[in-house]
């Protein structure tokens, strides 16, 4: 009995100190909301079209690395968006426990009235190591894993969430193709539909 109560107390303190830290350095729900809200334009672009564009980029310009950014990159860059780092098992779409909190923050943000009813792409990106088509596939599976966790366990309405994998076709820092900064999950607000 005593032991159980103590376990309870330590968990409570853990929660407090961790949320205290979050205010200063760590990712917060409001940071996600502020970056994503206020979609201005209505964008005519489906997740399938974006996925297809990435595949065509590989077919049209084959080679170890993508020679140029996606034709749609400019259009995407003008939209409200946010990059998060989510860690997965090596070569797998299984989200690591270290990133559970980040998934929870995205769920918290998407549930709020500030973001409700808007359409979001969840876009997976890899670095440039490995084959491009393989990276495209892996990043799509990872984006789908994030979407599935949000929609099922945290019940974010699924009709507004679309998973896309862009592999290494849209590096965040093309001057350092293999750098960790390129490995990311991007949330993009496509506005009200």
């Amino acid at each position, binding site marked *: 009995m005593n032991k159980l109560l103590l376990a*309870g107390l330590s968990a409570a303190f853990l929660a407090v100190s961790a949320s205290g830290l979050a205010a200063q350095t760590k990712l917060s729900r409001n940071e996600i909301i502020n970056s994503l809200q206020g979609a201005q334009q209505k964008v005519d672009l489906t997740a399938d079209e974006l996925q297809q564009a990435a595949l065509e980029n590989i077919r049209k310009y084959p080679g170890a690395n993508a020679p140029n950014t996606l034709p749609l990159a400019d259009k995407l860059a003008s939209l409200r968006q946010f990059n998060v780092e989510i860690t997965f098992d090596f070569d797998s779409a299984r989200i690591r426990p270290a990133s559970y909190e980040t*998934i929870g923050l995205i769920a918290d943000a998407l549930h709020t009235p500030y973001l409700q009813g808007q359409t979001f792409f969840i876009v997976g990106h890899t670095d440039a190591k490995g084959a491009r088509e393989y990276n495209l596939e892996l990043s799509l599976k990872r984006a789908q894993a994030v979407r599935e966790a949000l929609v099922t*366990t945290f019940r974010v309405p699924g009709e507004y969430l679309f998973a896309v994998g862009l592999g290494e076709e849209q590096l965040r820092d093309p001057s350092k193709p293999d750098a960790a900064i390129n490995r990311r999950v991007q949330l993009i607000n496509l506005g009200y539909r």
Partner: protein
Amino acid sequence: MRRLIFAFTTGVMLVAAPAAFAQTVGYADAIKILAASCGKDIDTYCKSATLANNGISKCLEKNQSKLSEQCNADRLTVTALIQARLAAQAEVPQLCQRDAAQYCKGVKAGAGHVLRCLLKAQPSVSKKCNTAIDLAGYR
């Protein structure tokens, strides 16, 4: 045992609660307890389970006899916290129905429009509805 866990759950919520009324915590604050208390067990026993469809919680439940004491206590807390927040969010439309009719007349239904209207109308909105919005983590 059940009662103890519930007592403990309330303890966490009271301490962690940011606002005066809030007796639920966000999904991030709930699920991070699972990562902290069960991270090792998840990597040992749930290598192929995923976060989707409550897969991790289900796997932990199946392997409960092998888990650390801390993980076994906290996994139930986490499930209860997530359920509490889901329930609080599901209740808002009903608890705010009257306020929505009064202060958000003519606002388009769906897509969060009414909730955004109720957030703006906070000073006029009833205590019942404002509390429901707090508990849902909508502010």
